[in-house]
């Protein structure tokens, strides 16, 4: 993983010329996200800021992240009061932020709903986000395929989930479970960490104790995965099973590319989507369309497909692997 | 020997809102016992805190063995050979006796405490104070007020100082303990150590003192008086500015009769007291005499429900009181002014008024809302009756002098006006003037039909104040008689015998 901002930007996929980058009227976009208490959210915020820097005609108002809906509502209200031209909101809790988003729309400020969906179409002009359920499905399918390939009868599949009180974690696990079920497989053990390396190590090391034989392991989040990886190494069971990551960090993609470790794939859930969200927000603010689409209008919903990155296709994804 | 060892001149100490010391002079000679007298709030403790480096004086100079010194901190004073026993026993409850005695001057090599040595020296010190029973390992928090006093004395002895200041060391001690103390003091003075001795008990001054300095309202009003020859009336006049005949109010002529208000029968708590039975009639004052540690406090606290009795019953006006419940006892009309004011009675962060009305709030409340004016006035009246200094009941109680704090504790219960009032060491640290006031108030209460139980370590006080006296030794009532039929020596003999007898039994 890298520490220098330049590389960081590179890894946000922000460098490839953004669509409709042609200068337009100067606009301000308000951005609100949950507290950056884990790598993915942090990357989302960083990417948004990095992306915004690419447009001379754009200023970004990024408010302090918080996991308290009351605080985030108040932040959004402040942004409305500031009369920003567009809002990009990654709500801590989509349902909880719906009302205030509606307010914004009502006030004529177009809202781009990032990743965690509002509960009403009236709350946003556009939704852009990952497919949590699909993410689980991709992971499930990949593992199922691998098991078949190695023709392992009822394999031991363990799942290390992320923050368990988040709805998105439930969706991911649901997708994983159902995908496996469609292949007649099931999750032997599921424990939740908290999206951080430290908790990943803590939970994984004990899950390894709990399961003396493992065939495959899916870890919801690559940042947390750093800890999981460490735990596996420390247990010395480095070539007993395959591990599938989540989100798609540069570090994991490098491992996949090298193909020397137990990390065989990761299912994308890429924080670079915040960059796209900023671009869309800008276009909405400038009342531009998407020139490259047939119909000029900006789609009401973009759900980025959760691709499975393997050593076959890793090179095409490396540029967007986040740090 | 006439050369002076310590000379303090024109010491001034101001606190926000009060001038504690308005120019005090004090000179102490080697090997003498110099007594410091003064009413509550006169400034005695403040003066010795200045001497000990605990307070910085605002004005004045201190000459120690000829050279001018300004003790910036307690350490400095100790280094110069001045040790202090503070009035408010400032010990650390969580630490053992030994650790407290050697706190900040531990026997240690390279920071490691030398345990055995510490213990040995501690045992020796406690022996010297006549208390081989207190083991060095005991947590100080478990000791009685008396026990703690012993430990602070041991602490003072532990740095072999050339001047030891004792701020009311005898307040919590009973007769025999005081004798021990005096024995030690004589040993010290013989070796040339000087003692500054503060006490409100004149008879002690007579016995141990050499010279007397009298403080009044933060000023030295007399110095170098002879402790033995100066007439009491003069000393009292110097202290209080008036003449007080240090006498007890007259008893009611005919002994109280009628059904007892409070009836205690067969009360027992393992290891503390056994089969205690007594009754208190309306208007009667019952005194409990006994040695420190004899368990009088425990008896009172158990009667009051603060401790759960192992066996026996307590009834008020014929009705049994639920055991082990203070609220029940209070509802039944009991009140207890406990022994250890700091730990058991005072709300140090609150004002005097708050403290005085603490048990009486409902009286000043309508539908739970407190009439603060009424409460304040009542408190003011009560504290005025007790000659509290300073007057203003809004001041925080922690800024009061020891004796004045004691008055607040007693005042709380005098104000409450309950059917039966239990007083544990009510006059501890209270000056002569206020004492006679206190006696009068207690007697007034009794005359108004209240039953009073008084625990005091001062036998004369028990005999003078009470109608009936119970002698407690080792947790048993060994004798009961009308106060009129007893004198001090009888009581003391009873106490000693009692304990002797009991301990023999226990051995068998």
């Amino acid at each position, binding site marked *: 993983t890298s520490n220098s901002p330049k590389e960081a930007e590179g890894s946000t996929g922000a460098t490839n010329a953004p669509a409709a980058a042609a200068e337009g009227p100067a606009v301000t976009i308000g951005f609100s996200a949950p507290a950056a208490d884990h790598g993915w959210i942090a990357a989302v915020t960083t990417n948004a800021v990095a992306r915004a820097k690419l447009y001379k005609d754009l200023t970004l108002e990024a408010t302090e992240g918080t996991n308290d809906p009351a605080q985030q509502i108040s932040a959004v209200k402040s942004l409305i009061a500031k009369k920003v031209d567009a809002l990009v909101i990654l709500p801590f809790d989509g*349902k909880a932020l719906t009302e205030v988003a509606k307010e914004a729309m009502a006030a004529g400020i177009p809202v781009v709903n990032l990743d965690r969906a509002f509960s009403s179409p009236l709350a946003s002009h556009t939704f852009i986000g990952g497919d949590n359920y699909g993410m689980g499905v991709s992971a499930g399918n990949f593992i199922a395929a691998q098991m078949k390939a190695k023709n392992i009868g009822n394999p031991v599949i363990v799942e290390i989930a992320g923050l368990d009180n988040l709805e998105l974690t439930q969706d991911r696990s649901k997708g994983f479970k159902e995908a496996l079920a469609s292949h007649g497989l099931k999750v032997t053990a599921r424990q939740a960490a908290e999206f951080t390396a430290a908790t990943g190590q803590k939970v994984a090391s004990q899950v390894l104790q709990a399961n003396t034989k493992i065939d495959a392991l899916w870890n919801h989040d690559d940042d947390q995965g750093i800890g999981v990886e460490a735990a596996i190494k420390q247990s010395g069971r480095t070539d007993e099973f395959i591990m599938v990551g989540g989100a798609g960090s540069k570090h994991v993609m490098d491992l996949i590319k090298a193909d020397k470790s137990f990390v065989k794939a990761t299912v994308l859930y890429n924080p670079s989507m915040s960059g796209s969200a900023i671009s869309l927000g800008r276009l909405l603010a400038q009342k531009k369309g998407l020139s490259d689409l047939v119909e000029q209008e900006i789609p009401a919903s973009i759900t980025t497909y959760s691709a499975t990155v393997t050593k076959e296709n890793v090179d095409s994804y490396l540029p967007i692997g986040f740090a | 020997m006439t050369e002076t060892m310590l000379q303090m001149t024109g010491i001034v100490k101001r606190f926000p809102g009060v001038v504690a010391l308005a120019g005090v002079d004090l000179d102490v000679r080697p090997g003498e016992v110099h007594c410091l007298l003064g009413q509550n709030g006169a400034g005695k403790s403040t003066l010795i805190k200045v001497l000990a480096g605990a307070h910085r004086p605002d004005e004045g100079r201190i000459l120690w063995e000829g050279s001018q010194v300004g003790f910036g901190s307690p350490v400095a004073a100790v280094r110069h050979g001045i040790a202090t026993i503070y009035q408010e026993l400032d010990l650390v409850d969580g630490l053992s006796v030994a650790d407290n005695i050697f706190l900040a001057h531990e026997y240690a090599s390279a920071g490691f405490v030398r345990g055995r040595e510490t213990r040995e020296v501690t045992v020796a010190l406690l022996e010297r104070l006549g208390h081989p029973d207190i083991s060095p390992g005991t947590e100080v928090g478990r000791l009685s007020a008396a026990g703690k006093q012993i430990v602070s004395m041991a602490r003072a002895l532990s740095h072999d100082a050339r001047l030891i200041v004792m701020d009311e060391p005898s307040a919590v001690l009973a007769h025999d303990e005081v004798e021990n103390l005096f024995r030690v003091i004589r040993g010290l003075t013989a070796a040339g150590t000087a003692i500054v001795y503060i006490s409100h008990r004149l008879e002690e001054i007579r016995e141990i003192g050499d010279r007397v300095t009298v403080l009044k309202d933060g000023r030295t009003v007399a110095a170098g008086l002879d402790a033995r020859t100066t007439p009491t009336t003069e000393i009292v006049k110097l202290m209080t500015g008036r003449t007080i005949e240090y006498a007890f109010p007259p008893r009611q002529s005919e002994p109280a009769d009628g059904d007892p208000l409070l009836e205690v029968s067969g009360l027992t708590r393992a290891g503390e007291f056994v089969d205690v039975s007594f009754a208190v009639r309306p208007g009667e004052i019952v005194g409990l005499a006994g040695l420190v540690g004899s368990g009088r406090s425990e008896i009172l606290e158990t009667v009051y429900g603060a401790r759960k009795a192992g066996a026996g019953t307590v009834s008020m006006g014929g009705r049994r009181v639920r055991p082990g419940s203070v609220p029940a006892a209070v509802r039944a009309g009991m009140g207890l002014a406990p022994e250890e004011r700091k730990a058991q009675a005072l709300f140090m962060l609150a004002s005097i008024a708050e403290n005085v009305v603490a048990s009486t709030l409902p009286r000043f409340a309508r539908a739970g809302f407190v009439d603060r004016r009424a409460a304040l006035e009542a408190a003011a009246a009560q504290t005025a*009756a007790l000659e509290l200094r300073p007057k203003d009941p809004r001041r925080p109680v922690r800024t009061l002098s020891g004796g004045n704090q004691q008055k607040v504790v007693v005042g709380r219960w005098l104000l409450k006006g309950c059917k039966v009032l239990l007083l544990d060491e009510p006059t501890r640290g209270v000056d002569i003037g206020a004492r006679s006031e206190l006696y009068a108030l207690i007697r007034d209460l009794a005359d108004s039909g209240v039953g009073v139980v008084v625990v005091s370590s001062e036998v004369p006080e028990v005999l003078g104040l009470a109608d009936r006296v119970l002698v407690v030794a080792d947790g048993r009532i060994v004798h009961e008689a009308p106060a009129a039929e007893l004198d001090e020596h009888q009581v003391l003999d009873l106490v000693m015998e009692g304990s002797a007898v009991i301990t023999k039994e226990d051995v068998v």
Partner: protein
Amino acid sequence: MTATEPATAPDAPVLRRAARLGSLGEARNLGLIIVLVLLTVVGAITAPGLFLTWGNLLNLLTTASVIGVVTVGMTFVIIAGGIDLSVGAIIALASVWCTTLASQGYGIGGMIFAAMAVATIVGAVNGALIAYGRMVPFIVTLAMYVSARGLAEQISGRRSQIVSDPAFAQIAFNKVLGIPLLVVILAVVAVVGWVLLNRTTFGRRTFAVGGNAEAARLAGIDVRRHTLLVYVLSGVCCGIGAVMLTALTNTGASTHGMLYELDAIAAVIIGGTLLTGGRGSLVGSILGVLVFTTITNLFILNNLETPIQNIAKGAIIVAAVLLQRRGDRRNAVTH
């Protein structure tokens, strides 16, 4: 009856002295007010036309309202010598409970009742374990903090539950003479709390219990019952807070009220209440909440990067307390 002499009202100079001294509470509060004023000035300068607007002010107060109500309860608990780590979890549990389909079936009344009932009961459990089980408040409420949130997660299946009844959502939209209802609720709770603390026997006893439990016991106060009541009170405040937060977010979720325990305790302590109990000021606590909320609001308006914000935040808190200490000469102990 007992006083033999007539009541001597404290003489004039004494009164003046007492007045000059002022209570520690007041002194500290003065400090906090200065801090607030300074923050306002900073806001007016750095975010002209944004900070000092009626809208932003109301928004700020609305944000403060939920945590503010919780802080009122916390103030009583801490003055009584205790601590309540479970407030955030209680809010989560209550909000979830009152938004289950079952509860929502009973309409707004049923929902409010559900929230209040749950919160009060949990508070009572805390209090009972502490007062009658004689357990350490920190541990009891820590256990509750874990359990209550767990229960909330279990009930909600870790999915936030939308409020269907528009009447309920209205709680967050209603205004009383132009003031948001939530702010009014905070005001009412604060005033009631202040009166309860400073004008009633209950309040006096709360100070007594926290100041010296043994003395309170020997003074005839039923310390255990009082302790229980204090935690019940905290529970009730959490119930109100839960209703407010649920209305504000239009959802009930097991993730509601995260870190509220820390925010509330911080506000109480910075407000001049002793963590060890026995002394404190409710006005101070409310000022504390406002200070913290204002700091955050300032940052949002000034669009600082979050990490910088946090670094600055810490510095500001320290500065604030130092400022406060100037207001408060009395704790200048000689060391």
